[in-house]
């Protein structure tokens, strides 16, 4: 049995407190009137630069203001005001989604292990189960944030603002799908289905340990895993349209669901590897050998390449066809987000490609940890690039709000995951493949 050390508990609580304080500061320091923005702009040396950029590229920074081409003086400051008010919300949204998607990715990975009847991975099941423990609290927090955004308490979603929808042909056409109530009902269905699978998967896994005869519970696990995967791939796709693609409601991409899936899958697998290596370094999980780490690292490598494939497929078709309403998505990102946009390709593709290519390096723990941290940061930036351009435009910055939001959810994530690890023995001893998994070697 794993016991949560008081040091780790304290560490995660400190992270939550610092994160909450920083985020509160972020919300309080956001300007509330146009006068505040004007004052800020006057003090800010970049103020002039922003103004110039606005005149030329104002119409793609924020969909909500895309229609008013002629910027009057106050209109510009109002625009800036909305961006700056959105900033802490967007930071909160990104961090909440990022940690939620890690546990969702692990849940999908866990289900795949059962559906495929994989023999190598059962020794890692308890780590995966613990990471999915974050799904429920993380999902509920995220649901609250979604509800606040969907009902236009903040200005994250343009389509949630009825005054912006009227007169906009595309948004009017999409209103039967993108409206506050149907949006939040869908989110409840998606999350409810995932919570339900998570609940029964854990229950059956524990029962299988108590009563392994005849593999009765294992067979049930297999069946619900297969059913969940079908449900998951549809709902994940729709969730990615709702929760991320609808930030740019004029734009669409047909492979967006897969793209987000690749991101959450690789982040989830990386987290499994990091937590397993951490537990091993603390003297737990002696049954995990370096072949298990090797396999996880192979997945990190492979899914990183898969992510790049989807990223590039999405980019190249839109870049080549050069249709104005499609290509603005990338023009915004390349003009205003050059560093995060291309930096993320280096972090998510070039770095894992070079570091994890060699077979031997995949078994060196510190190599896997180093690559894993870069991959996780890279996928945070990936989500950042998906959300920020449509919500804060060129007023983006990775500052106190963004870092605090990450710390807040990181602390919560660590606390819940490591707390969940103490709930059951670290070896799922009833699993029929557990002996094969223990003797797994490459």
């Amino acid at each position: 049995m794993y016991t949560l050390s008081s040091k780790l508990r304290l560490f995660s609580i400190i992270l939550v407190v610092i994160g909450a304080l920083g985020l509160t500061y972020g919300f309080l320091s956001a300007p509330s009137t146009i006068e505040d923005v004007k004052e800020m702009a006057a003090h800010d040396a970049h103020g002039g630069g922003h103004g110039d950029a606005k005149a030329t590229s104002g119409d793609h920074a924020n969909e909500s203001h895309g229609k008013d081409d002629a910027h009057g003086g106050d209109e510009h400051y109002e625009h800036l005001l909305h961006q700056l008010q959105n900033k802490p919300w967007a930071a909160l949204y990104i961090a909440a989604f990022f940690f939620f998607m890690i546990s969702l990715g692990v849940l999908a990975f866990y289900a795949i292990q059962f559906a495929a009847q994989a023999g190598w991975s059962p020794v890692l099941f308890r780590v995966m189960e613990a990471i999915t423990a974050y799904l429920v609290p993380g999902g509920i927090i995220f649901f609250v944030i979604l509800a606040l955004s969907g009902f236009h308490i903040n200005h994250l979603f343009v389509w949630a603002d009825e005054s912006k929808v009227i007169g906009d042909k595309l948004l009017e056409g999409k209103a039967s799908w993108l409206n506050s109530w149907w949006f939040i009902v869908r989110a409840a269905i998606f999350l409810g289905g995932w919570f339900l699978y998570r609940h029964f998967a854990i229950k059956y896994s524990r029962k299988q340990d108590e009563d392994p005869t005849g593999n009765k519970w294992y067979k049930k696990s297999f069946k619900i895993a297969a059913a969940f995967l079908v449900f998951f791939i549809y709902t994940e796709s729709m969730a990615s349209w709702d929760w991320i693609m609808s930030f740019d409601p004029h734009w669409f991409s047909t492979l967006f669901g897969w793209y987000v899936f690749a991101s959450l899958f690789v982040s989830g697998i990386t987290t499994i590897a990091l937590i397993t290596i951490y537990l091993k370094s603390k003297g737990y999980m002696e049954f995990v050998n370096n072949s298990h780490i090797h396999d996880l690292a192979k997945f990190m490598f492979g899914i990183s390449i898969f992510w790049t494939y989807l990223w590039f497929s999405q980019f190249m078709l839109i870049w080549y066809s050069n249709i104005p309403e499609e290509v603005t998505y990338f023009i915004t990102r390349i003009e205003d987000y050059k560093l995060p946009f291309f930096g993320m390709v280096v972090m998510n593709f070039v770095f894992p490609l070079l570091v994890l290519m060699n077979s031997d390096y995949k078994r060196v723990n510190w190599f896997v940890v180093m690559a894993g941290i870069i991959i996780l940061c890279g996928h945070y930036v990936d989500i950042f690039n998906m959300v920020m351009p449509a919500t804060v435009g060129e007023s983006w910055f990775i500052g106190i709000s963004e870092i605090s939001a990450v710390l807040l959810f990181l602390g919560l994530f660590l606390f819940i995951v490591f707390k969940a690890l103490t709930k059951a023995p670290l070896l799922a001893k009833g699993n029929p493949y557990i002996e094969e998994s223990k003797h797994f070697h490459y």
Partner: protein
Amino acid sequence: MASKVIHALYTDDDVLMDAVKQVRAEHYHIEEVYTPFPVHGLDKAMGLAPTKLAITAFMYGCVGLTVAITMMNYIMIEDWPQDIGGKPSFSYLENMPAFVPIMFELTVFFAAHLMVITFYMRSKLWPFKEAENPDVRTTDDHFLMEVDAGHHDVDTMTSFLSNTGAVEIKVIDKQEDNH
């Protein structure tokens, strides 16, 4: 000079793996093992040096990438620049996204084909080559371990090998130039 080798046949890959480990622990020299299918981990158990094929694959991939870039640069930029979809081909870098699929494909093409050819050459395989395996059953369901008798006592070795689970043991006088 004639030398003696012992052919020990096994019918199970797990038994074979254990036998290989025992034979190596006794410091007998295993010349070769013939198996009907690749046995996972056998190369490590036999103490063979790790393959360098992966390094060659990487180098071939780099060659493929270079060929693709040189070729596309000559064809699309230097020799016959065209304006495709409002994207005039004046610079390789600006048109690079369009060339990425070709760069990727040729990298894979070169790495895969040249690696297979290297593997064949390294294993001395070519069309109409005579089979080297000493017993046809190794292409069906038997595993054959060829152990060098050297200056060891053949009788002790035979009894030792039959204890490792061999179903059949043959002592062969082998001419050096015979195979």
